[in-house]
């Protein structure tokens, strides 16, 4: 198992290679995809990508948290969080690929 970190750069290179667009265009399209997904999520809309997974926004209620170091009570404001649920296909692929 390797231990690399891929970034927008590697995704752009893959788009450039697979679709035959220029490097700059590929990079802008990767950015556009992330932007469209972010905009939908910020609007509260889930993003469902078949055979990949579902991103959805959940509302969290306010609660009293604690600073684990000092034990002080800290109010935690209500907030919106994003959760990602991988599809079965993605889970299987990742489990199989990482078997030792």
């Amino acid at each position, binding site marked *: *198992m*390797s*231990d*690399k*970190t*891929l*970034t*927008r750069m*590697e*995704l752009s290179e*893959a*788009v450039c290679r*697979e*679709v*035959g*667009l*220029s490097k700059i*265009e*590929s990079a*802008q*399209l*990767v950015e*556009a*995809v*992330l932007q*469209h*997904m*972010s905009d*939908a*999520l*910020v609007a509260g*809309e*889930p*993003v*469902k*990508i*078949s*055979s*990949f*997974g579902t*991103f959805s*926004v959940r509302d969290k209620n306010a609660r009293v948290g604690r600073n684990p170091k000092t034990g002080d009570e800290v109010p935690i404001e209500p*907030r*919106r*969080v*994003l959760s*990602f649920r*991988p599809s079965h296909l*993605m*889970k299987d*692929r*990742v*489990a*199989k*690929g*990482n*078997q030792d």
Partner: protein
Amino acid sequence: MIRSELIQKVYDDFDRLIATEPGDGRPTQAHAERVVNTIFSEITEALASGNRVELRGFGAFSVKHRDSRTGRNPRTGESVPVSEKSVPFFKTGKLLRDRLNDK
């Protein structure tokens, strides 16, 4: 939003973003589909090889390892061995987290 709607949005961006023609002629909806599919399959394959994918501002995909444990069939209460496995994990990026909360 589902995959096909994302593909449509990317196709709508072509006018604005694409000047050159891909190797095989005019940019079509099929090219937009390949752009979207390439991005998601690249992320899946990276995770399957044990790599991380870090998309600043959006979030990071990584693989978490779960140890083997003894599970229970919730209906019968019977114990069942669950072997160790690797699962995909996503952590939301700071920019997107802030945008979700109108910051």
